[in-house]
């Protein structure tokens, strides 16, 4: 067990290393002049400036030199200082955000984190609950409805779903506005009396005792949360259902029923804990779904988080910003998978990890 975790921890930097190489290779598709333009704060005004940047960052050097420069920074010939370097948290300058990429990411992170935290509750709660209900009522009407619901969910592109709920619940009824806060709430939040402990509006509002701001923040997040959840429900429902069905067919469940355990206890005590083990793995995939989902969801709902920043950057081909986000996400994803694998081993003693 410990050996397994250790081995995974050794593998982790290797995979991240692979990810950086892949990102770097993708950048090589661009010509040196185009890559030079990525480093300049303004749109390059003349050839000389581009040449200077190419020279300064060694963009015409062999690829392995460039890779090292990109990873740990290049030595500036004039001053002797190290400049840039992904490992030194210098991800370059974001043309669309008009600030260094790392600053942009850190500034936008709280909004996305808040959305993700609030989305996890309905995603896991409702998704798993629906799956168990469907499995208990195998081949009955509820099961069929759940199945169709799940397939339709699979087939609904995020942006179409998002635009449709916006049409119904904002344009038509005005119930749930897009954005992050209403104007009056923004004034309260940015006023001196309001302490921003976490930069997560809902939590800050509660900590400051402003329940009206809390409700306003939730009201703005409601539609994005529904959109993100709907897509994950389809997956979770399906996995929970099939896992639960398989567990319910096991011998020990028959034994439990035979010795007269109440059906409620058979489901809740004997079947569910075992059936939920594979579901834990899927919650790792749910993180992936969320990361993919926020890009489109935040764009549709004009929600000022990481996702909408990246989408805006991608449209104006601001590659550095997108790559910074991808690097950030890939690391997060690898960590999430590691946590899930370890959790899996803890949950299921039958998985004596190789």
């Amino acid at each position, binding site marked *: 067990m410990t050996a397994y975790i250790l081995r995974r921890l050794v593998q982790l930097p290797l995979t991240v290393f692979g990810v950086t190489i892949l990102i770097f290779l993708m950048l090589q598709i661009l010509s040196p002049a185009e890559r030079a333009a990525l480093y300049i704060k303004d749109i390059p005004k003349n050839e000389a400036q581009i040449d200077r940047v190419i020279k300064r960052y060694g963009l015409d050097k062999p690829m392995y030199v460039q890779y090292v420069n990109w990873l740990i920074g290049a030595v500036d010939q004039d001053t002797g200082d190290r400049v840039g370097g992904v490992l030194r948290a210098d991800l370059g300058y974001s043309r669309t955000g008009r600030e260094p990429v790392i600053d942009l990411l850190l500034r936008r992170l709280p909004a996305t984190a808040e959305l993700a935290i609030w989305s996890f509750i309905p995603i896991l709660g409702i998704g798993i609950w629906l799956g168990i209900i469907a499995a208990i009522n195998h081949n009955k009407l509820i099961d069929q409805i759940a199945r169709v619901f799940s397939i339709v969910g699979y*087939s609904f592109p995020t942006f179409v779903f998002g635009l*449709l709920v916006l049409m119904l619940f904002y344009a038509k009824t005005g119930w749930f506005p897009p954005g992050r806060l209403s104007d009056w709430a923004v004034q309260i939040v940015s006023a001196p009396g309001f302490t921003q402990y976490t930069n997560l509006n809902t939590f800050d509002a509660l900590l400051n005792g402003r329940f009206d701001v809390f409700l306003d923040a939730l009201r703005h997040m409601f539609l994005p949360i529904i959109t993100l959840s709907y897509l994950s429900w389809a997956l979770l429902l399906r996995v929970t259902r099939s896992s639960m069905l398989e567990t319910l067919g096991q011998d020990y469940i028959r034994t439990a029923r035979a010795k007269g355990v109440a059906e409620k206890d058979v489901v809740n005590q004997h079947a569910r804990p075992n059936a939920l083990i594979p579901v834990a793995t899927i919650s790792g995939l749910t993180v992936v779904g969320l990361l993919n989902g926020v890009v489109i969801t935040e764009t549709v709902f004009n929600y000022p988080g990481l996702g909408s920043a990246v989408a805006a950057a*991608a449209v104006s081909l601001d590659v550095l910003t997108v790559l910074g986000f991808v690097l950030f996400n890939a690391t997060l994803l690898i960590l999430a998978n590691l946590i899930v694998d370890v959790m899996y081993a803890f949950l299921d003693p039958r998985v004596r990890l190789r």
Partner: protein
Amino acid sequence: MTTSAVAPTARKRYKTDDGFFLPEPSRLEKAVGPESARVIRGLLTNPLSVTGLVVVIFFFIVAAAAPVLAPPFQATADPYQIPRDGFGPTPQEPGSVWKRDVPPVPFWYEGVTGKQEWVHLFGTTSGQFDIYYGIVWGTRTALLVGILVVFAGLFIGLIVGSISGYYGGATDDILMRITEVFMAFPFLLAALTLSAILVPLFGRGIWPSVIALVSFGWMGYARVIRGDILATKERDYVLSARTIGAKDGKILLRHVLPNAIFTTMVLASLDVGAIVLTFAALSFLGVGTDIGYADWGQVISFARSYILSLDTYWYIIVFPGIALVLFGLGWNLIGDGLRDVLDPRMKK
């Protein structure tokens, strides 16, 4: 799955060489083999997958009949450019009459509607692109992109997976680690990044997205094929081939792959739906096709300018949205039925 619905008693039996009595194979079984026959029968007896088949066939018909359903403005023009009725910024409602640059009216139109003048059946976007035309010709784009991406991805996956599974050892380790690196990227984001990088190279169009989707879409196939090959290469006939001195390449291509590939091919072809949805998302975000290209995601992206008044301009999102959802639904319904049939636990 009720495979027992085919009553064995009703069928004639024949005597095999070693003295067993087996049911005479049905015509379907004779044509495609017993395993494929079971899969086809399973698909055709499940109402959900039959619905899916009907929907997918419908889209193929629309794609084939596109020039008849929505004739281009001029025969010489690029049919994938949506014809425009002027350049006005305000979208027009479904049913509004086509005023400028009217395309030829298709022959079925008067018989069906009783009118003579060609209208915007599904309305227009801002810039007066005809939504109906975009959806009809977008069907071709969708099918083309979906099939292209799946087969190219399958091809890469096949190469990586079979080398990995067949040779094993260090080769397998290295290839699988590389696969994991590709999998560390969230699919949509990776495709988004690579498309953004490729757009300056290829210009806007389907190619940047197609290449990006292929580059990050092969890993699943590689892993499945690897697994199937690991199982197949232990079979006796592979051992026999090796004992008579067949070369590695020949064993892999002639004996292992043909027996390992079926499931993967079928499951991969069903990814067409998911691929098209992602492709549409890329267009929606703005790294896909150019404005005015007949592509569903491209048409929907016009809705982004009307978030506040989507109730007035509902047709920009609803019609292409229905096309996308139906397309995804059709493929997923078949896929769902197929997974049931192929699931070894469901076999009797």
